């Protein structure tokens, strides 16, 4: 539980930063710093347990079906990173208080920073891979926000976009890798997957998993060839660079490698990929660092180089390489954060970061200069400082490894070369900035920074020295436990002593120091050589690439999506043809074994009528009224087909729907042009006709195959259980209101939504009304026909009685809520047709949308009621009662459900038609009763 609170603290801090925006700057910083400090305070009591080898866990099931649990764990490795994140985070908060100018929005900065801190803590404390990935992406997003903090600068926007693109793309690869791991090992919990090393590494997909995970880690940790985003991310405010781009975020990739080290490492593929990537990153970073004129650029490339060094260590096959890697993670975070802070102070006090302008600052800020000199000496690997110790360990490991077989000697040699460059760029950082003549063309006169701005640096530099002199005392046990976590076993014995005697690693250090100084002294020639390259900046190439990509995507989208509805339908139908036609090709013979029904004269006549009417509809489609008449013939014949083939419920429904549909289409005709203007070109007609025939043939054949072949059906279940389980003999109705009641509930909801959508479409419809019909005849001004009015009025009570009857018998005989609702609706619509909206409206004060709501509510409540009896949603109840005079009657909860269906159907049909009808009335030339 404490872990959970630790994780939540930055979130509170983030919210607090936004809440405290009215306060003075110092108070804002103070209140924000309070939360990481609290988290640290919560963490401290846990430290002794973790150092004693205990793993603290906390978690609860979140989405157990997906294998996603909320799970936190604190072991040595997590503890190390948590301390770095919270500790350096606190220092950065303090530092940023003085770094940010009054023009910068402090709440925004602190909110983003704390959000990032939350994400980072989430990664290192996660005990579940999926959850870890979530926080991983959160770091990408919050780092995007932080890099683009000065969003008015194009560099910041571009740099942020580049960082996000690269790290998020890697994040997607990582997600794929994690999902594969979950598939193979059956869990995402670290505690469950880490012991299954053998199973994963013997799996055929292991190389894919490894490469995907490595892609994620390498992009995040700016490994070659994905390193280019890091120098461009230097457009961020310097506290961000100190925090994200040296101490924490770029270490997330390394953390992932360390976290999954027991699971993924140990194979040749791992050694080779990780070693070579680390080695090339180490060299590339060290080489380019020397040529940067921007102080932060130099530090960025140096960071890349050091990240490469750590990666290289994780890829070596010696026992202690991982220990050395962890050690260097700590050391690098400490000295690099302080160096970035130096860069920020210099930027802040001189207004420039260009080393060609900033010279001789020793005279202006001696204290800062001294601190920076100690930190960069540590970066160069000078004895008595922490950087020296881990570099020595690194050299020792390069000598003892055998990753490259007979070429393994190359690694220590190249490591020394990189170290020479590291000394050279460290020397440049010191010499160029603090000595080397006087400042050139600075806008400000440099001076020492505010007292407290230097405090974070002082603390970090003190740590450099303390760790460098008393390594065992300072971090011995932490390193030991972190190593246990990474190796999943106690590491072999090692010594953190400063002096190991005269040996090869010491020799390598000496060579690097002397070589580096010599290289720096003779740098002019190398600079000339480097100037010979006509290199375009990575950011321009990247931008150009992205723009090309966007343009291509847009073009191909326009190719496919050209705005023609007919074309979309055509493509859809072609796909349908392919999907439905392909299985038919595999079928040997359409005709199945099932006994066929004999021909029947009446049916033949009906079928011919139906076909003629359908074809006629197509033929006369441009004479719209006639087409409408034809299609209603089709609908009528379909209803008769339902009658003939034993589906009375369907016939009743189809017949009522038919009436409503035709009325609706007639109303639509009133609003649409009455004649079609143009004809399709012959080419299009032939194409469409061919496609339509092909689909007709395929669907017809499928239907024939389906009808003549026997197939196992689940229908017998419904037939057997309708009476005993649902209490009704009309199986169709019992299925609707009982077995599949939930489906029906969904369907009436859709009906209600469609009706409300229509209502919305009809409100505020612009007036677009022809004053005459297609032939130029004016609208009829006749009164509503008297005969129809009288008959419809007389029919109304009869129709209502019929619908009540149909409704109640529905459970046992053909009928039910759907049919009854439609009959009621038809009877009502007849009133509208016969007497007009103006007549009906004042006489029928029913809000149809309320009716829909009542219907859906009734059905839902009926379903919910079963919860009162501890039954699942929509369990139905029925029983038989003896009523005097009437006899035995049945009461079923399904009746109430069906009543909901009834209300919804009535409400929806009338809502649609009455509202459409109302519009026609409103715009029609008003008919005046003869007085």
């Amino acid at each position, binding site marked *: 539980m404490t872990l959970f609170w630790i994780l939540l603290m930055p979130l509170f801090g983030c919210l607090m930063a936004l809440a405290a925006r009215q306060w003075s700057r110092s108070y804002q910083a103070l209140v924000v710093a309070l939360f990481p400090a609290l988290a640290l305070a919560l963490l401290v009591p846990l430290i002794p347990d973790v150092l004693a080898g205990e793993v603290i866990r906390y978690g609860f099931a979140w989405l157990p079906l997906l294998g996603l649990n909320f799970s936190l764990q604190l072991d040595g490795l997590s503890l190390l990173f948590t301390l770095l994140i919270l500790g350096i985070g606190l220092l950065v908060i303090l530092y940023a208080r003085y770094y940010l100018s009054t023009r910068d929005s402090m709440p925004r900065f602190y909110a983003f920073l704390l959000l990032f801190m939350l994400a980072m803590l989430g990664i290192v404390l996660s005990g579940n891979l999926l959850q870890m990935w979530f926080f991983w992406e959160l770091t990408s997003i919050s780092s995007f926000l932080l890099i683009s903090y000065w969003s008015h600068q194009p560099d910041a926007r571009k740099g942020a976009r580049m960082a996000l693109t690269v790290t998020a793309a890697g994040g997607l690869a990582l997600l794929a890798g994690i999902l594969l791991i979950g598939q193979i090992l059956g869990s995402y919990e670290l505690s469950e997957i880490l012991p299954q090393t053998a199973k994963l590494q013997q799996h055929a997909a292991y190389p894919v998993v490894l490469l995907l995970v490595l892609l994620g880690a390498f992009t995040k940790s700016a490994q070659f060839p994905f390193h280019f985003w890091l120098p461009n991310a230097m457009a961020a405010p310097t506290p961000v660079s100190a925090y994200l781009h040296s101490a924490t975020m770029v270490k997330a990739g390394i953390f992932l490698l360390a976290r999954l080290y027991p699971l993924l490492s140990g194979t040749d593929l791992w050694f080779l990929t990780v070693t070579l990537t680390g080695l090339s990153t180490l060299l590339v970073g060290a080489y380019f660092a020397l040529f940067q004129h921007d102080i932060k650029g130099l530090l960025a490339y140096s960071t890349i180089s050091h990240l490469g060094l750590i990666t290289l260590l994780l890829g070596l096959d010696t026992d202690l390489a991982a220990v050395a890697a962890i050690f260097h993670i700590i050391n690098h975070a400490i000295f690099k954060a302080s160096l970035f802070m130096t860069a920020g102070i210099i930027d802040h006090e001189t207004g420039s970061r260009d080393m060609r302008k900033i010279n001789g600052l020793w005279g202006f800020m001696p204290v800062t200069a001294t601190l920076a000199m100690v930190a960069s000496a540590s970066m160069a690997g000078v004895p008595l400082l922490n950087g020296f110790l881990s570099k020595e360990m690194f050299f020792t490991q390069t000598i003892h490894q055998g990753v490259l077989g007979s070429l393994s000697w190359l690694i220590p040699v190249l490591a020394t070369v990189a170290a020479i460059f590291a000394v050279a760029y460290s020397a440049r950082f010191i010499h160029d900035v603090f000595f080397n003549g006087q400042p050139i063309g600075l806008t400000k006169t440099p001076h020492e920074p505010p007292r407290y701005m230097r405090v974070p640096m002082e603390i970090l530099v003190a740590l450099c020295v303390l760790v460098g002199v008393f390594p065992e005392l300072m971090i011995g046990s932490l390193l030991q436990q972190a190593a246990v976590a990474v190796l999943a076993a106690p590491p072999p014995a090692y010594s953190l002593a400063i002096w190991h005697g005269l040996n090869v690693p010491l020799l390598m250090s000496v060579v690097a120091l002397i070589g580096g100084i010599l290289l720096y002294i003779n740098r002019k020639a190398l600079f000339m050589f480097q100037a010979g390259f006509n290199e375009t900046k990575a950011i321009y190439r990247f931008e150009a690439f992205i723009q090309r990509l966007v343009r291509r995507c847009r073009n191909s989208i326009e190719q496919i999506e050209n705005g023609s509805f007919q074309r979309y339908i055509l493509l859809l139908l072609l796909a349908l043809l392919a999907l439905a036609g392909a299985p038919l090709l595999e079928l040997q013979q359409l005709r199945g074994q099932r006994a066929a029904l004999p*021909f029947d004269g009446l*049916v033949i006549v009906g079928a011919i009528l139906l076909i003629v009417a359908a074809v006629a509809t197509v033929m006369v489609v441009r004479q719209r009224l006639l087409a409408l008449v034809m299609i209603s013939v089709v609908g009528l014949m379909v209803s008769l087909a339902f009658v003939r083939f034993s589906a009375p419920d369907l016939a009743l*429904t189809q017949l009522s729907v038919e009436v409503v549909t035709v009325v609706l289409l007639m109303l639509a005709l009133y609003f649409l042009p009455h004649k079609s203007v143009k004809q399709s070109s012959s080419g299009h007609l032939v194409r469409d006709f061919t496609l339509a025939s092909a689909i007709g043939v395929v669907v017809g054949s499928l*239907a024939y195959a389906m009808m003549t072949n026997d197939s196992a059906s689940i229908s017998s279940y419904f037939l057997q259980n309708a009476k005993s389980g649902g209490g009704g003999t009309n199986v169709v109705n019992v299925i609707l209101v009982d077995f599949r009641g939930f489906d029906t509930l969904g369907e009436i909801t859709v009906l209600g939504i469609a009706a409300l959508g229509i209502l919305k479409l009809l409100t505020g419809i612009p007036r677009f009304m022809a004053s005459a019909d297609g032939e130029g005849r004016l609208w009829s001004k006749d009164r509503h026909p008297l005969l129809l009015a009288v008959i419809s009025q007389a029919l109304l009570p009869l129709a209502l009685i019929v619908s009540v009857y149909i409704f109640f018998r529905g459970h046992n005989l053909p009928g039910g809520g759907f049919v009854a609702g439609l009959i009621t609706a038809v009877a009502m619509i007849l009133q509208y047709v016969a007497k007009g909206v103006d007549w009906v409206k004042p006489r029928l004060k029913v809000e149809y949308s309320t009716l829909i709501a009542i219907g859906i509510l009734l059905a839902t409540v009926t379903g919910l009621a079963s919860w009162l009896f501890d039954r699942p949603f929509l369990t139905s109840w029925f029983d038989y009662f003896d009523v005097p005079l009437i006899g035995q009657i049945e009461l079923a909860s399904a009746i109430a459900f069906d009543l909901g269906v009834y209300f919804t159907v009535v409400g929806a049909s009338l809502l649609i038609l009455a509202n459409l009808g109302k519009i026609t009335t409103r715009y029609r030339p008003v008919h005046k009763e003869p007085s």
Partner: protein
Amino acid sequence: MMELLMSIVIGVLTACGVLMMLRARTFAVMLGLTMLSYAVNLFIFVSGGLTAGKGAVLGRSDIYSDPLPQALVLTAIVIGFAMTAFLVILAIRARADLGNDHVDGNSGKSQEDSA
């Protein structure tokens, strides 16, 4: 042989529906969709096989027609009506807003021809 007749009917209805759905005027598309709904409803209905003169009401006969496709089709008819209605109103609204009844709303000046 009633099955053969039924398949022909379904095939013709489908073909007519598809042909009309490919037209460029909204009214034709509405009729096409209605026609296609008939075809699809019949198609689902016959998936249980054809039975003549025997309903799905218990106690009325020894053999029952398949109740499941009937239940499916019953709701399909109602939902189909809702969908057609929505399409009709959409077409009316499009006409009112755009001033024409072309499916692309551009008075037939697209690459495809109109009917």
